[in-house]
Every structure is written in C-alpha cells, then in structure tokens.
C-alpha cells in the first residue's frame, strides 16, 4: 500500500533518456524531454504538431481529391450538386448517432444499443403520428422520452450494477430487439407528409437533415467545451479515479452521457422515420449504426478508452466514410470491395493515431 516507487522510477526512466527503441521501430521521440532544461516555453511549439482532428480532415481532403481524380478518369464528375447532397444525406443519420456515441466513448463508455433504439423510436414516432399532423409533437416527445429512458437504464446498469458498458448495452439491445421482433414483422405506422420534409427538403445545396446533424454536433461541441459536464466527461474518461478524487461524481457523468447518446439515437430514428414515411423494426440494424457509429468516432481520433478526442473529429470521420461511399458508388465498385476498403481505412487510421500517441505519451 505504500510502494509507488516503481512507476515513479519508470517515469523517470521515460523522461531524461529516450526509452529503448521497440524492435523494428524508430526510437520514440521523447515528447516530454524536460522543458525546463532549456527551451521550455511550456506550450512547446516544438511539439505542437497536428492533432487527430486535423489528421482526419486532411485525410478527408485527400480522399476527396483522390475521388475527384478517379471519377474524372472514369469519365464522371465527382463534385456535382447531386453527390454533395447525397453525401450529406447519407451522413446525417449516422452523424447524429456518432455524435452521441462520441459523448459515451469520451467518458470511457460505449453504447451498442443505438441501432435498436433507432428502430424503436422510428416505430414509436410513426405509430403515434399515424399520418396525422397533430400527432407530430406528441410523437417527437414520446420518441425522445423513450430513447432517454433507455439511455438512463444503460447508464444505471453500468454505474450501479457495475456491468461493463459493452455487456450492459448489448443486453439492452437484445431486450429491445426481442420486443420489436415480437411486435412487428415489417414497417408500421405512417408519417405525415409535413414530417417527411425533414428527410427530403433542402435549403439550396444543404439538406435539412444535414442542418439537424450540424445542430446536434454544435450542441455537443458546446457541451464539451463550455459546460462543467463536458469537462467532467473528459475527466472521467481520462482517469475515473483522478476524477473521483477531485470530487467528480463519476457515476452521474456516465449516466448523463448515456442518456444523451441514446437521445441522439432517438433523433436519428426520427430522421429515418421521416425518410421512410413509416417506422421499421430493422431500420437501425440495416444501417449498421451501432458498430459504424463507433467506427466513425474512432476514425475521428477519439480514443476508444475515453478522455481524448471530440465531436469535430467525429464529424470528419462520418464525412470521410460518406465520401468513400460516394466515390465507390460513382465508380460502381462492388459492395464487398467497398467494405474491405472501409475496414482498412479504419484500422489504418487508428494505427496512425496510436503511433502519434505513443510518441508523445507521458505516462
């Protein structure tokens, strides 16, 4: 109970001299070489470099440029209004889910139930609306309440029952799936035309759904940057024990992120119901929103272990996936090849981040 010495020594070992180079790799650049020894202007322009968020946007630009060239060679025109609108529409639902997922992952958790929450809320909304304009408001309220409730359950199971988030949210997902499979064989309910405008209208080149996504992302960004909850999300994900010893109620933070994550899934469910004109029990899983949202978050440079990253990266990650999709569609590449490339991109991105992190890691 008294011996912290070894880690302290290990840290000292890491500081003054570069550690032993891992076999086959270059010596880790000693990011924390003591600033005091000389140049130490603290912030350290020398180490500034670019963060994962910049990396993802650079990658996005690169993919767009490559896509433009490839499509041009193919005899097409990459950046038409149609493709730009398509990219935005394709990314909106995933983008909204991924923003919520970002909050959960930043806090060191994750949510595997989002796909079923999407299906459930699409049905709740479409059934309550039943084609009537007057049903829209009650339907929105009910859908959001249901998703918030599921998030609350997820959060409480994780924090109170001490069930790992992976299992807790997987369990929730299975429960919702069971209920949906029992009650529905196919699409149900009906969304009035006025509500379908959410999915299809656009202002110039910008679809309303993309604006909704932008709004959700901006709200999450604001939450993370300007509110106490945001600060504590980073703290809990960074090191729950440090947060606890600083007086942060870590359980509440995790519950809050799960409620918000689930509500984002609910919003995505509403958007998809508006597109489909009805609710559907498989709309969430068909889109693969659970794993894909996690992939987009990680692609955006947020650490899967939490505490590092942000909404900006996630938006870039979602856009990158959508642009890739769009390029493949225009080139009419076979769908399996598409998945292979997506898989490679995601793994490569995380490998790049891991490398950058291990170079500058201080503990």
């Amino acid at each position, binding site marked *: 109970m008294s011996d912290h010495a070894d880690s302290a020594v290990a840290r000292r070992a890491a500081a003054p001299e570069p550690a*032993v180079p891992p076999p086959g790799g270059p010596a880790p650049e000693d990011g924390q070489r*003591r600033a005091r020894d000389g140049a130490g202007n*603290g912030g350290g322009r020398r180490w500034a470099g670019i963060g994962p968020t910049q990396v993802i946007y650079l990658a996005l630009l690169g993919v767009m440029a490559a896509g433009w060239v490839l499509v041009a060679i193919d005899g097409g025109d990459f950046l038409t209004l149609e493709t730009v609108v398509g990219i935005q529409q394709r990314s909106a639902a995933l983008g909204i889910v991924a923003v919520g997922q970002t909050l959960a992952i930043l806090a060191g958790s994750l949510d595997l139930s989002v796909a079923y929450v999407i299906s459930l809320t699409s049905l709740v909304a479409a059934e309550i609306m039943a084609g009537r304009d007057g049903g829209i408001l009650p339907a929105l309220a009910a859908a959001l309440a249901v998703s918030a409730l599921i998030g609350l359950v997820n959060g409480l199971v994780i924090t109170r029952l001490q069930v790992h988030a992976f299992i807790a949210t997987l369990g929730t997902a299975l429960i919702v799936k069971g209920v949906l499979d029992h009650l529905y064989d196919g699409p149900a309910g009906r969304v009035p035309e006025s509500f379908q405008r959410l999915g299809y209208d656009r202002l110039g080149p910008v679809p309303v759904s993309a604006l909704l996504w932008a709004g959700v992302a901006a709200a999450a960004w604001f939450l993370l940057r300007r*509110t106490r909850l945001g600060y504590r999300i980073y703290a809990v994900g960074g090191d729950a024990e440090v947060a606890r*010893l*600083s007086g942060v109620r870590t359980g509440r933070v995790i519950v809050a992120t799960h409620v918000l994550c689930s509500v984002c899934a609910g919003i995505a469910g509403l958007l998809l119901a508006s597109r489909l004109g009805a609710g559907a029990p498989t709309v969430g899983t068909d889109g693969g929103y659970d794993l894909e949202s996690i992939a987009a978050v990680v692609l955006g440079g947020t650490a899967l272990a939490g505490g590092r990253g942000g909404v900006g990266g996630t938006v870039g990650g979602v856009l990158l996936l959508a642009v890739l999709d769009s390029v493949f569609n225009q080139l009419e590449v076979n769908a399996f090849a598409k998945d292979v490339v997506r898989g490679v991109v995601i793994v490569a991105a995380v490998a790049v981040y891991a490398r950058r992190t291990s170079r500058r890691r201080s*503990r």
Partner: protein
Amino acid sequence: MILRMRGIAKSFLGVRVLHGVDLDVAPGEVHAVVGENGAGKSTLMKIIAGVHAPDEGTMEIDGVPVSFGHPVQAQRAGVAIIYQEFNLLPERSVAENVFLGREPVRRGLVDRSAMEAATARLLAELGETSFGPRAPVRRLSVAQQQVVEIVKALSQDARIIVMDEPTAALAGHEVELLYALVARLRERGIAVLYISHRLREVFDLADRVTVLKDGALVRTAGTGDVDPGELVRLMVGRDLGTYFPPRGTGPGQVRLSVRGGGNAVLDGIDLDLRAGEILGVAGLQGSGRTELAKALFGAEPFTRGTMSPLRPASVRQAVAAGIGLVTEDRKAEGLALRQSVRDNALLVARSVRRRGRDAPGRDGAPGRAGGSGRDGVTGLLEAVRLQPPEPGREVRFLSGGNQQKVVLAKWMTVAPETLIFDEPTRGVDVGAKAAIHDLMRGLANDGMAIMMISSELPELIGMSDRVVVMRDGRLAGELPPGPSEEAVMRLAAGEATP
C-alpha cells in the same frame, strides 16, 4: 497547531500498521516524516488525506475535530496530498487539471478565462514561468507536473500539503527547484508534511522531523536537535531477534556476470553472481533495485555493457539461459490469480523450453523433480511446502505466503541456474516468511545462484552472503556478510561512501 493527531491506530486485515501515533504540525512548518519502508508513513499520510479512516485516535484541524470519509472531505478541510503517482489528466490542460471538479462557472458556463487567470496567478506566485495554464499536462516534465499538483492544492486553499517522496522522480537540479517551492509554501503559512527517506533533504528543508518505526512513533525532534547518524539509528534500531537459516559454505563458480551494464535507469553495473550464494540488493525505493532485477531478467533489458552467459534482450532469452525472476508484485506480474495452482506452476514450463534439455528436471535436488504431469506438480508443491498441496485450487484463494510458494514452484519446473527474488516476503506472514527463507537457502545450497532484493533490512542482512547497495541507478557499494543496518542505510541514502 494547524494539525493535531492523537493516538492514531490502523490495522489492515488484522495486521496493525499504526500504533497510537501522535503528530503536531504548525502553520508554516515543514515537518518531515521519516522511517523505513513499512514503518507506516504512507498509511499515516493517507489517514490525514482522508483515504483511510483511522481505527482509533483523533484528528483536529485548527482545533476542530475532523473525521474524513472521503478524500474530497479532507480537501475541503484544507488538506491536499501529492502522491508520487500524480493525479493528473495528461490529455487536459494545466488549468483544467487544477480546477477539475471545481470549474468556475458564469451564467451556467465554464468560465475558462477566469480559470486560466487564476492558474496563471498561482503559477506566477510560485515563480513558475516555464509553462502556462493552457499547456497540456502530457507535455510537462515530472517536475512541472509536480508544480501543477501544488498549484491545484493551493487553488483548493489547502493549508496542509502532504508530499509523498516528492524527490523520488526528480533529477538533481529539479530537486533545487522543489526546495524553492517548499520555501514559498512555508512563506504562505502552509504546513508541509514531507515524507522522505533522504536524510539530506530532511535536514535541508524540515523544521522538525518525526521518526516512525514499525508503525509506532519513535521521536519527534527539531532538525537542529538531532544529527543524521542519530536519525538513522532511530529509524532502524531494533532487535534482530528473528531467526534466519545458516549461511552457505562459500560461493562456487560465477553464474552470472555483468560489466558496465546500463539502460535508461541503470548505469555502470558491475556484478558477479555465484552458484551457492545469496546476494542481497539493498537500496531505497526508486534506487533502481527492481530495474536491476528486470534488466538481468530481460524484461527491461540492459542496453549497454556486457553480460555472461548472455545479455538477454527478452524474457524468453533470459529464461532459456536459466534466469528466473520472482517478481515484487506477485499478483500483477507473478500469478494468474483466477487459474489453478497447477496451471500457474506450469506456466513457465509450458511456454519456454530450456535450451539443451527437456523442460523439468535435474536429479536429486528438491523441487526440481517436477514433471509437467499431475504427479510432477504434486511433488513440486510438496517440495515448496505448499499447505495444503492442492493443485486444483484457484491461486487467488491462497494466502500471500502460499502464493509466493506457487511462484517459486513455477520457476522450479525449468530449473534455473539463477533466481532473482524481488521482495520475496512482502505481504507474507511470519511463519510463511521463515519457510520461504528456508527454501531460498536450500536452493542456494543446491547450487543455485540467488539474488534477493528486499526493503526489509533485517531480512536482507540475515539472509545474504553479500550485500550490494544501490543508489540512483548505480551500485553505491558492497558490504561483507552481516553488515549493520546503519551501514546499509548510509550507503543507500548517500550519507557516506565506503
């Protein structure tokens, strides 16, 4: 007195680690707390910081009785503790770390500029100009992170700051900067409780010093009223009433030899380890003892110097060359707690085959008869005197002493020529301690070369045929059989060179 503690007692799992300790600290006082490893310093500090609640005794801050159920309560009462392992978020900025959990808000939103201004002000007051409030903590050196911890404490209006071995991770010139910081804290009327082994720091910095030994208060004195030699005697003086097995008949051939060994932590290591001897390695926490063991074992390899029979670059190479390590932290590094005794005992034998021989077994020697089958394991467990010798039990249900015997059995299966023990009896009860000592001596008598690291000086002195003392990653000196504890401590603390 800002802090007054009376009759503080604390037990863990029935083992009494503090016996009625009294402590008084005045505002603006630097009060050193010294003692050997296991003397109870850390437990006492954790009681002050609200991590542990005392079983007995009272505590007052500014004359008001307090009892803390959570570290945050201690913080609110003005107590801050700075651990060796900092409580900082590397990915967040200095200001965000300082105000973690107490972010200032204006109209419901975090007031970033107020936060950064307050942090900058405190940094300036401490004379820290090498980094600003926006710097990410991961880019700071250990010394700078320590400053962040102090700023955090000051921002909480701490009036008592506990520093646990604050210089353990600092380079030489950084220690001077820490001295200056402590002086500033003293000027502000803050009471500093300074835990350290290093006597020079105690005499440089502290107004008074409290010596703990075996969980009891030995003496509190002004640093002007004691001299270093006396302090060492107070720290270590005790009856050597414990029995240790008789020493061996003299060392045999050299089994392991290092010349000029070094890596990021170690430097200039010259060491011979002979068959049949137990070489004791003494040193303070952080002196590089464990790193030496890990270097010999290839876990954190030497990057410089020569070593025979070979300089292992990996654990597999070391094991294949006949070197084993019984780690300091057996629960994290030595055992798979949820697996059976048998699986643990066979872990090494199943993974690494010794060069030029079938895994287990030279004849005749106790404990080396273990085959990989059921009977072999049972024989092995009897050889290490596991009580009861049930191969099917999960290791986590065993006592500390029995767990250590399983670790030993694990190594027996590959019959190493050299076995390194890092703190072999930590957390082990007295009876099992003696059994482990006997086993170690038995192995040495059978021709094994043994290196033993221990923070318990009586054990180290009683068991070792030779003692080498480490300081700052180097060998500070070698002592003949049966040195005095004072001689070891002087070498370890850098009080004298032989």
